[in-house]
């Protein structure tokens, strides 16, 4: 098990700069997720860490050793590929035994017929290790099957098994759940987290799905356009996003961004309603971010007047899409838990908000912090 340090990684494909000076340090036994929209360079970063791609600049350190020029096979990492990349002509047991055979057996012992005869005990040990891992993943019954005879979820487990069977210093996973159906994906999230706790290994997990990042990781790195915009624990990234892009990427449904104005004293207002916060800014404009769960439909007399244009029922939650009358602006509002579904399509509503967690951004997207805590500003 090991810590991983990526420092100042740069990568370009032709003229396209895919990674711009990425620095990331992952502690031992940490579950770190690289999350970001498709094409932002997550896979490239992971492949540079694995050694499958060479960086144009920067260094890769694993367990304190510089591994930048070490070939993938010697970095002792394990990778689970999006396509699983199981060897189709081998059974699951043979697939899982492959990394052990290639690493633990001599060239002689790997020969087809002579090998198993001459190195019988080594082969028995490998078989035992494979069965042990299969037991952990509950795929013992599948050991004699070929990958083509397995379902997506079973293949996923087999690929995980091949990665787990030798004790690698870290596990790298590139969107391992994206080929599974929705229910299985949610189930596997929990399993992977549990597996991480059980193995106590370092996990680096790539996904485009912010929900996976939020639910599974110890820390998530939000990537966009070849940069890491923010790196921190999921709840912190969610509650305290560093930029507008992060705020918009993390959280579903998306955060509502309203045009705001700042007066001479730093008081903020959005769509004509004052927000209890003080900003120290030169500009007169700011963006105000309010998450759907901070909005509600009983805003009283000074709420924003609007009309329900869409109801999004997720079962456990109900979201209303409200088109405001005054401005060309739509808000997504989470329905109150106790009076679920009272409003219907076309109803006129007044949208109110809980001001204490409003987020403020400068027009260029950087975060602005209120100099006065919301509670105090409100009472002032």
């Amino acid at each position: 098990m090991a810590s991983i340090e990526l420092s100042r990684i740069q990568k370009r494909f032709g003229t396209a700069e895919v990674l711009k000076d990425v620095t990331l340090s992952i502690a031992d036994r940490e579950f770190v997720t690289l999350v970001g929209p498709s094409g932002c360079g997550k896979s490239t970063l992971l492949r540079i860490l694995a050694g499958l791609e060479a960086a144009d600049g920067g260094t890769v350190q694993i367990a304190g050793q510089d591994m930048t020029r070490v070939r993938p096979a010697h970095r002792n990492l394990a990778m689970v590929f999006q396509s699983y990349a199981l060897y189709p002509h081998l059974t699951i047991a043979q697939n899982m035994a492959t990394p052990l055979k290639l690493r633990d057996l001599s060239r002689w012992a790997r020969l087809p017929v002579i090998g198993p005869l001459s190195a019988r005990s080594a082969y028995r040990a490998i078989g035992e290790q494979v069965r042990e891992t299969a037991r952990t993943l509950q795929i013992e019954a599948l050991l004699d099957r070929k990958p083509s005879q397995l379902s997506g979820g079973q293949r996923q487990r087999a690929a995980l098994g091949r990665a787990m069977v030798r004790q690698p210093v870290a596990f790298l996973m590139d969107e391992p759940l994206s080929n599974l159906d929705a229910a299985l994906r949610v189930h596997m999230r929990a399993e992977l987290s549990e597996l991480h706790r059980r193995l106590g290994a370092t996990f680096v997990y790539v996904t485009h799905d912010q929900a996976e990042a939020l639910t599974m990781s110890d820390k998530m790195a939000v990537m966009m356009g070849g940069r890491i915009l923010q790196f921190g624990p999921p709840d912190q990234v969610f509650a305290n996003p560093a930029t507008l892009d992060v705020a918009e990427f993390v959280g579903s449904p998306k955060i509502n961004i309203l045009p705001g104005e700042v007066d001479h004293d730093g008081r903020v207002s959005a769509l004509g309603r004052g927000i209890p916060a003080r900003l120290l800014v030169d500009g007169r404009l700011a963006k105000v971010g309010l998450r759907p769960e901070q909005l509600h439909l009983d805003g009283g007399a000074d709420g924003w007047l609007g009309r329900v244009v869409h109801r999004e029922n997720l079962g456990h939650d109900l979201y209303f899409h409200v088109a405001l009358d005054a401005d060309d602006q739509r808000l997504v509002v989470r329905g109150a838990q106790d009076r679920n579904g009272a409003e219907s399509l076309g109803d006129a509503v007044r949208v109110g908000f809980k001001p204490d967690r409003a987020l403020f951004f400068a027009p260029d997207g950087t975060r602005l912090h209120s100099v006065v805590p919301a509670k105090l500003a409100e009472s002032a």
Partner: protein
Amino acid sequence: MQNSRAHLWFIAPALILIFLILMLPIGLAAAMSLTDYALGNPGFNWVGLENYERIFTRSTYERMFGATFRYVAVVVPMSVGLGLGAALLIHSLTRFGNLYKTIYFLPVMAALIAMAIVWEFALHPTVGIVNRSLEAFCGTPLELWRWHANGCENGFPLWLSDRDYAIWTVAFIGVWQGFGFNMVLYLAGLTSISPSLYQAAEMDGATSGWERFRLVTWPMLGPTTVFVVTITIIRSFQVFDTVEAFYPQGGGPGKSVYVMMFAIYEKAIQQNLMGIGAAITIVFLAFVMILTLAQRWLVERRTHYV
């Protein structure tokens, strides 16, 4: 059930075509192989299996099988192996790949009859480039090779007209002509291997090219190999144009290059012995049939991954 016969209408065109194009000629050949029919004769006699008996007892046909099997035994492994080797080399190139592809594929495209003239010239006993080159090495350490030393003393072989060399020379030309085709098939197979398998192999610790080949390339080329081998065997059994170009009469020195297709041609066309020609044809078809069945069995048993 008025329309219960509709299916007949759908399969009828295919059935009729198969019958006309395939079954009828084969049936006629099979029937003819039991006669002593000759083109132009007013009638014929049924001779039963006499033609087949001849094929399997007479020394001429023993030579025919000998020449054919020698040719197949050289051409199949060599042109499959070289095709695979060339494909692997070209596939690993980042530049000039297309140039090499074209060069290796040229012999496939070139008409063999035309190329035969070039080979005849190159293999000419005295002025040919092959023997000239061999002579140029006389007096060098290459003479440690007994065969070469002997050649320097007594003259190098008459490649095309020595009965000990003729069939191997013709087989060599067959390899030269055929491996480019196999190379193209293998290249297609190589491009369809998912790169993530190689990456998985690397992560699993396959560090040498040989390990990658054994773990990924060779198994993934399995279906291609079955196809390539079958095609090559059938094409080798069908060799005719080289033999016809070099030895228009008699099938080479001491009938040592008397391959099956040439035998059919000589018996049925040149000598107008339709019966025996048809019998050789049927034997040939039987070989092809067995090979095709073997291929199907292999494809279904061994290389059916997905």
